[in-house]
């Protein structure tokens, strides 16, 4: 055990990243947490990658052609790609990774991400064998993928760690436990040096990487820790160069003391309250849902509860998504006083009054930030609308089970997009989606999404998706509250840090002084 960790004595430049919770796995097909995905992007490399400003760039593939109306992708790999142990990396490795992720036996949380590929959905559903996936190696360095329908975001999916190749001999030898120090062989700019559970994952530059000449930082440590306040203390004590986020309550002080080191940027995430559409009275009264949505003063929440570290949300798809116009209900532009007056009128029209108040329940999973937001929203409803709002705090797992079973009325929810496209959000409200805990079913909405998927013209596709979002906003099966922002502290000694919508940062693009 002692030999695992003698890291601090080594030479070379070092970057220490506060990474939030312990990564659940370093197997790219089995991970889903942000902290694991961050490490995977340093360890492995996919066909494409997210550029510093969020655009798609070539990675293991140096180029590609798209044919058949956006359905057929042909990738050319860079010559002489190698694994960290020196073995050759071929197109077949990428084929194997995609087959592995859609195979239900793998237990991949992101199995459905690759549904646009021909046969992928059938394989994940257990109706077809993984080798029927429409991905082929045309020689050692050429790869072809056929899609069911054109998907303009498809190149972005190939930058997602779920598509990254793994070294199959290691999987064959060690099984599930292959992603461990001494066993893990990877193809990214870094290789795994040490992993101390609940402490840190240490990476060392991979000399076999095709672009190693441009890698500036020799060693990267991903430091685990759920406690954001403790992370800030360690950053202040000079033990971390980057933090995964900052504690909201300390934001004003951070702005004053470390303002120039604080990076805040729009992020692909939405925080909202879902409404269980199967439960009366909210489920069958649009006016009530609308009144509750209108009475929330989002600017106040963002300003005072989130301390400016969020954007007030009125729509569903976050702003900044490529090729998409953000949608807002018309009342979003009204001043708050007018919205409140309208909300009061809607409630009164529905027959609710001080003597006969509307009773609602807000349920949230245990977390300080969720509690604070629920408290403020309940107070807004109670003190300004006369709605009796009860708060129910449930332990995480219990909460998700109750939500899924439809035992909740209004429930806290959040969605983080997996790729830069409106569909990553809109699909969540589709009738068949397993996450649709609102139990909202709208055939017209589903049809709009269906039509958009078969549309190859980007403008026409966007128009259909925008129409779908307007439909969802009009039905109000959920109440948007805020859009996430990424919020990191980055020491001045780190250079090359660029904020982007997906909050993706590759260590190979960064440099450090001293």
């Amino acid at each position, binding site marked *: 055990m002692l030999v695992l960790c003698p890291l601090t004595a080594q030479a070379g430049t070092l970057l220490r990243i506060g990474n939030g919770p312990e990564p659940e796995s370093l197997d790219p097909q089995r991970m889903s947490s942000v902290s694991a995905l961050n490490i995977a992007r340093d360890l492995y490399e996919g066909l494409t990658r997210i550029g510093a400003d969020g655009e798609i760039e070539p990675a293991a593939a140096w180029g590609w052609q798209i044919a058949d109306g956006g359905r057929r992708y042909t990738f050319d790999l860079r010559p002489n790609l190698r694994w960290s142990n020196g073995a050759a990396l071929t197109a077949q490795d990428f084929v194997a990774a995609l087959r592995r992720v859609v195979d239900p036996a793998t237990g991949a949380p992101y199995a459905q991400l690759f549904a646009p590929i021909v046969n992928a959905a059938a394989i994940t559903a257990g109706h077809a064998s993984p080798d029927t996936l429409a991905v082929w190696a045309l020689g050692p360095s050429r790869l072809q993928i056929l899609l069911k329908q054109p998907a303009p975001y498809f190149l972005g999916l190939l930058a997602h760690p779920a598509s990254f190749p793994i070294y199959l001999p290691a999987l064959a030898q060690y099984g599930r436990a292959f992603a461990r120090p001494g066993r893990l062989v990877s193809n990214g700019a870094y290789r795994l040096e040490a992993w101390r559970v609940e402490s840190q994952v240490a990476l060392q530059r991979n000399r076999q990487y095709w672009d190693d000449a441009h890698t500036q930082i020799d060693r990267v440590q991903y430091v685990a820790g759920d406690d954001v*306040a403790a992370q800030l203390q360690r950053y202040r004590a000079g033990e971390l160069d980057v933090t995964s986020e900052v*504690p909201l*309550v*300390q934001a*004003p*002080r951070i702005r004053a003391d470390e303002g120039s080191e604080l990076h805040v940027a729009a992020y692909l995430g939405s925080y909202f309250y879902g409404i269980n559409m199967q439960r009366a009275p909210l489920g069958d009264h649009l006016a009530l849902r609308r009144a509750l949505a209108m009475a929330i003063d989002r600017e*106040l929440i963002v300003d*005072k*509860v989130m301390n400016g570290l969020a954007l007030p949300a009125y729509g569903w798809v976050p702003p900044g998504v490529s090729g998409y116009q953000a949608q807002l209900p018309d009342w979003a532009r009204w001043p708050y006083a007018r919205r409140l007056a309208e909300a009061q009128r809607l409630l009164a029209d529905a027959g609710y009054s001080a003597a006969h108040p509307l009773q609602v329940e807000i349920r949230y999973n*245990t*977390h*300080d930030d969720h*509690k*604070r937001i629920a*408290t*403020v929203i*309940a*107070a*807004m409803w109670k*003190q300004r609308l006369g709605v009796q709002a009860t*708060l*129910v*705090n*449930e*332990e995480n*797992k*219990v909460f998700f089970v109750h939500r899924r079973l439809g035992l909740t009325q209004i429930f806290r929810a959040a969605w983080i997009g997996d790729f830069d496209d409106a569909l990553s959000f809109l699909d969540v409200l589709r009738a068949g989606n397993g996450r649709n805990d609102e139990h909202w079913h709208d055939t017209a909405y589903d049809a709009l999404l269906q039509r958009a998927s078969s549309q190859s013209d980007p403008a026409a596709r966007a128009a259909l998706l925008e129409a779908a979002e307007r439909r969802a906003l009009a039905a109000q099966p959920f109440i948007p509250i805020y859009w996430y922002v990424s919020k990191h502290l980055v020491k001045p000694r780190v250079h090359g840090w660029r904020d982007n919508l997906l909050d993706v940062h590759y260590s190979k693009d960064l440099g450090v002084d001293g």
Partner: protein
Amino acid sequence: MGLIVALSLLLAIILFVLLAPLASPYACDEIDFDGPWSSAPTLAHQHWFGTDSLGRDLFVRTACGGRLSLLVGVVSTLVSLLIGVAYGACAGYAGGRVDTLMMRAVDVLYALPFMFLVIVLMVLFGRHLLLLFVAIGAVNWLDMARVVRGQTLVLRRREFIAAARIGGLSDARIIVRHIVPNLVDIVVVYAALTLPQVILIESFLSFLGLGAASTSWGALVDDGAREMMATPWSLLFPALFLGATLLLLNLVAEQLRLRLARGAGTT
């Protein structure tokens, strides 16, 4: 002397907790949307202890938190007292094989990590206030059971028990009529020691986010600890009250223990 002072200070805290909300224009969870948030103590808006980072009045919240903490403390202590005395007295009175078996069960429960058990109970049964009492009380009765059993073993051999038995009293009656009344001293001391412990346990549960749904001192101290850099008063007042109460309760227990020891010394 010390006992009187400590008890009167405790009484003062209890009175504050009960009466303070009547003196303030604010309610426990009310947000003063028009007033200043994260404000230091001020007379201007009648926020005598200041407001927290959500614009709630800390004067009222400290009182509300105290109500809950004291309630949890008293009820949970009573629960553990009830189970502990009944269990301990039965085991001690029965003696022999029954006693051995019952105490082995206590040993098993001792070997369960206490916090883990409370957490599982909270997860299993949801976060109702009543269940919080039961959960804390139900895991905290072990000490009480041991002490009571030890004492009962001694009592059992005394003449008046033998006399009662010859007089034809049933076992249950003997336990209720003769054993339990003779345990009062030691039980009171133990209860006084348990009370602050239980309040501390509730505050730890609040730290884990598993405390009662409404405000307790533990929850307030936890909130305050998160915000101590920005708004030190949000930690100061609840911590002061929580600390003082625990201190006073411990002092009272200490004094009671001394009296008991002295009483035992003189007879």
